């Protein structure tokens, strides 16, 4: 009886895992706009120590992901479907997707699908495996396409109601750990944020 129950559970597990992933992404995608504080630790392969940076992040279903780094240097990166728009510390802006080069477009989409938890583009780009429960979960993302697999080894997401951690391992040996906290939900992005999303 007990064995039967266990095997039934084992049988049901993949479905459960897939349902869990769907539930997580659905929940993450609910608010139109989420803002959070982030702290990032990035270890570059030719560097002796990790670099810590802090700032704010805004995830908008409609516009994309806005990464506003405040220390140790000021930099805003807007990741959209069409590319990456950089705004430097002096307010000088440059659209890296100016010629809409494929690389920047890919980067824009990549970050939007990871941080923005865009289910369709996430599933198209990665094999995603969810573990845990809706209250405390991790999702492991491995690139599906060989183009992405040349650069990216694995991405691990963790969270509860909101996305709380992002861990990126690159093929080059670089690794990045991002922690998000103080989440706040909003209906739409602020005017100054919207300006950063706009093509210069």
């Amino acid at each position: 009886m007990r064995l039967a129950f266990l095997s039934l559970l084992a049988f049901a597990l993949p479905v459960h895992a897939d349902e869990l992933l769907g539930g997580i992404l659905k929940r993450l995608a609910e608010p139109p706009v989420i803002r959070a504080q982030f702290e990032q630790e990035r270890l570059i392969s030719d560097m002796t120590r990790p670099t810590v940076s802090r700032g704010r992040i805004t995830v908008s279903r409609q516009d994309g992901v806005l990464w506003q780094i405040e220390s140790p240097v000021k930099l805003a990166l807007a990741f959209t479907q069409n590319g990456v728009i950089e705004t430097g510390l002096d307010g000088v802006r440059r659209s890296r997707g100016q010629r809409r080069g494929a690389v920047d477009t890919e980067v824009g989409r990549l970050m939007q699908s990871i941080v923005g938890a865009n289910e369709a583009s996430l599933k198209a780009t990665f094999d995603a495996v969810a573990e845990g429960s809706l209250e405390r979960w991790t999702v492991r993302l491995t690139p599906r396409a060989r183009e992405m697999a040349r650069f990216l080894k694995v991405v691990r997401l963790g969270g509860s109601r909101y996305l709380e951690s992002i861990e990126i391992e690159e093929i080059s040996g670089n690794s990045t750990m991002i922690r998000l906290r103080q989440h706040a939900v909003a209906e739409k992005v602020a005017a100054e944020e919207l300006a950063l999303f706009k093509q210069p």
Partner: protein
Amino acid sequence: MTLRTRSGLFLAALAVVAAILAGMLSRGVPLQTNVLAMLPATERDPVAEKVVASLSAAIGSRVLILFSHADEARTKAAAERFAAAASGAGGLRGLLVRLPEPDPKLLHKLYAASRFGLLSEPDRETLASGRFSTRDSVLQQIVSPVGGMFGLPLAQDPFGFFGRWMASIVPSAGAMRLEDGYLISREAGRTRVLVLGEVDGDVYDNAVQARAVAAYERGAQAALAAEPGTEILRTGTVFFAASARAAAMHDMDRIALGSIIGITLVMFAAFRSLRPIVLGLLSAGAGILAATLALLLVDGELHLVTLAFGASLIGEAIDYAILFCAAHLAAGNRWTPQMGVAQVRPALTVAVATSLLAYALLGLLPFPGVSQVARFALVGLAVAYLSVQWLLPGLLTQPTRRDPARATGWAARLLERWRAALSGRRAVVAGAIALAVCVPGWMALQSNDDVRLLVPRQPELAAQDAAIRGTTGFDAGSRFFLVRGTSEEDVLLKEMNLTKRLRELESAGVLSGHQAVSDFVPPRAAQEASRALLQKHVFADRGALTRTLTEVGFRPEAVKALPGEFDRASRPVTVADWLASPLSTPYRYLWAPAGDAVPASVVTLIGERDAARINLAAAGLDGVTLVDKATSVSVLLGKYRAWAAPGLAAAAAMMLVVLVLRYGARAALAVLVPVLLAEALSLAAFGYAGVPVTLFGVVGWTLGLGIGVNYSIFLREGIDRPGATAMAVLLSACTTLLGFGLLAFSGVPALHHFGLALATTIAGSLLFAPLSLNR
């Protein structure tokens, strides 16, 4: 020589011609479907003309096939099945479902030794402005979550210059992205996969077209059989050319068949005998055979339009035989072939002289296509004329058994009544009213010189083409910039002046993109300037550079290597390097398009949205010209159309000279008036119906002038009985309408306008012909 031996010799010659022709055609019909080949050179610059040809071959051979299915795996499977089934047996080659994995070493090999001379435009501006800070720049790279992910390791490119330059030269694929080698897009619940390929051979070669289309169909069937529900879209010059060819062949079949059936019925009704039909077709056939052979020998190939036109030449060539047979009917039992020839010769000679004059005038137009049509008509009509005198007499020696008066009586009465209706004051008033009614029609006339009149695009293919362009962004137009200089460096420098303006247009949304060699290989001067900028703002104070990089956390050995690399990697990348790399394969046609001896390049445009602003991009730039074949052709069509009105008047004047020599001034005018009236009414009809005046309509009116005047000449010259003459004219007009006139139903706009102009002119000439009998 007896009549029979002469006929026999003529038939023997005809048989030889037919045999030679059959031998030539057994190797395939050399049918030219490239519209450009029909037109004269449009560019003043012979280099530009050459480049147009080489580019249209390079771009024209591409095919794009887009697969779409709700299920991603099935979409990919359908594409794979397609490629497997379509490759192999020839037709299409290089069908790529999955692009080969790009070798990252290739980029390194091509650019590594030159990388400090390669800067993206924004980086050049930042460095030149003096705002560059090494510390901020390297920190931005480190803290960006994707900094250094795609390019060189951060220690080798700590400021991301090379990475940004590389990113700036990777072309966009519109909504498509490269995924596992597939060009893929996901939209509205469907996955789309693009397959690229090339036509195996010359796109405008019929056999190649047929093989390519067959290969596509084989592939599409296999894909649909394996994965039902797959949507398959295709585009490429080969599909348009093949469909235009099929449509023209279909037109020709239909028109030729309609002509033959119609003419046979009309002739049988009039002569109650099959002999005149056989003689008529023999005479017309002799003309067409001879004309086809002559042109194939001289030109080597027949143009599509000539072929369609040739099919309808039956209509005029048969007129001469009709007159001969009418004379036979009119003579009754008094008939001898010699008498028949003597009776029809004056009318035929005047008719042929005026027609040949009109065609010769057409032959002077510098359009290879139009001139071929005219030469076809000249040879065909001359041979038909000779056949009536040399071939038909030997085949029509027995007199008819019908009573001539009864057989032609109906035509005599019809002519008499119609002539009465057209004479007197009433007719003058009616004519004046008719001309007055024409005036608003003339005022409403509009011209159209669009090149698309020549190239009918099948709507379904055009829709598929638009869908593929929309999804993929591969919407390369037919316009491009030609850049010429004195050397490789000069060409690249001139190109850069242009691409700078194009980038501004791209930012303004006027243009989606461009392709230029200088984007991949900047001019040496630009590479040296970029290197100098880096030297000045980054590598000048090496102590400070090392300090900054160490401070932010780089290992000392990595930091030390960088200045050494800057010193070593100082060789500018050259066009030769680029051409030698497999990376340049898709773009090689951009360089030296007119051959290696002429330093030149081509800059192609993608996604033009405002032609007028793009036209201005080359303004004032030395050595840069916009080549726009389609517009050049339209301008040319317009020029000849405008030229044609005085041409038509000149043709009429020349005919008048022939007629005055024969009939005297007053009667000559009477002979010319019917056809002139007919043309006036035809023009007005075009205006009322909203059919634009095109060069091809004008060609129709010119030919109509030559044929329409024949009816007046026939009536004027007469043969034995007025009834027989009237019958001959009526039959001639009917056969011409059934021949040429059916072209009015052609799907090719050019042929449609031609047929319409001709049919209305012929109908009018027939109606007014009795006016020529007025003294």
